[in-house]
């Protein structure tokens, strides 16, 4: 039986703190970077609906592409 992982499996295993994952498995992975372009107002609208939350770990940067 093959036990090695593909690049997607390795990446998502690492981001979700798991040693090994297999196709079809559901994981919660940390997201290191979120890029939002002109659509930020729509994202912010959903963020407001989520209630009184602080922006997560990464914070917001106004870098241009």
């Amino acid at each position, binding site marked *: 039986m093959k036990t090695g992982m593909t690049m997607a499996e*390795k990446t998502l295993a690492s981001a979700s703190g798991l040693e090994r994952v297999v196709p*079809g498995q559901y994981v919660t992975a940390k997201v290191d970077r979120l890029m939002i372009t002109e659509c930020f107002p729509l994202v912010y609208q959903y963020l407001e609906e989520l209630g009184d939350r*602080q922006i997560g770990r990464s914070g917001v940067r106004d870098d241009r*592409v």
Partner: protein
Amino acid sequence: MGSAGCGIGFSEGAWVLAVGSLWFRIPETIKVELKGAFLPYVTGKDIALYLASKYGTDFANYKSLEFCGELAASMSIPQRMTISNMGVEMGAKFAFFPSDETTKEFYLERGMEWEFFAADEDASYEKELTVNASEIGPQVALPGDVGNGVDVREARGSESIRSSWGPVSMDGLEDLRLAAKLLEGKRVAQGTRLLVNPASEDVYRQALREGVIEKLSAAGAIVSPSGCGPCLGGHLGLLAPGENCLSTGNRNFMGRMGSPKANIYLGSPAVAAAAAVCGKIEDPREVFV
């Protein structure tokens, strides 16, 4: 390095901002071996369009694509980025290239840390495909679907009122250099608009320093600020009813760039340069001899 990127919706974007994580289903992986060598005026864009036309725009639905092989190893980072960015047009959740000496150089030049990253040798794949680039000429996706790819000779003669370099599926600088080289001493055809859209501020400034922008401008190109623009019909000249466009962007769906009565063809920077000079779709191998 060892990172994956994918598109998400507005609500998921808000969730990530609030929580810093997101759920994923681990995708099955399709391995794509790229072998052979690029023919003249063939780029990563052509490989992506070829894959989408040969296997369909849904053959990798929620799968991960892994590109490998002798050609993949010889490709520049921008070429790899173009193919990876086009993975979503085949339905893929992610599209990877393994890291190697080329990646190392790219990272170190930018002051970033590098480490080797690749699949395990005994990894399992749902499917394995082989693409021989030596058999692929410049491609053009006919209007309506990214999977409508044909050899440029089959699309030859279509009127192209406007050509654009979109920032979406490519690094930009390598494409701009190629375009400037091909267009040097030539002029954009009467009645054709050539829009050049640098992929980033860094690319824009480097292109200015190298004289690339000057050459493009001298050929009659309109150079826009970097960022999203014509590819999604955002600004900088929406397509009018009846207009035809050769775009180097990712998508050619009806109405994508303006009027639903406009026609959007997709191609590489070389195909776009040939279209700009001729005012219609032509084979770059014949235009730039």
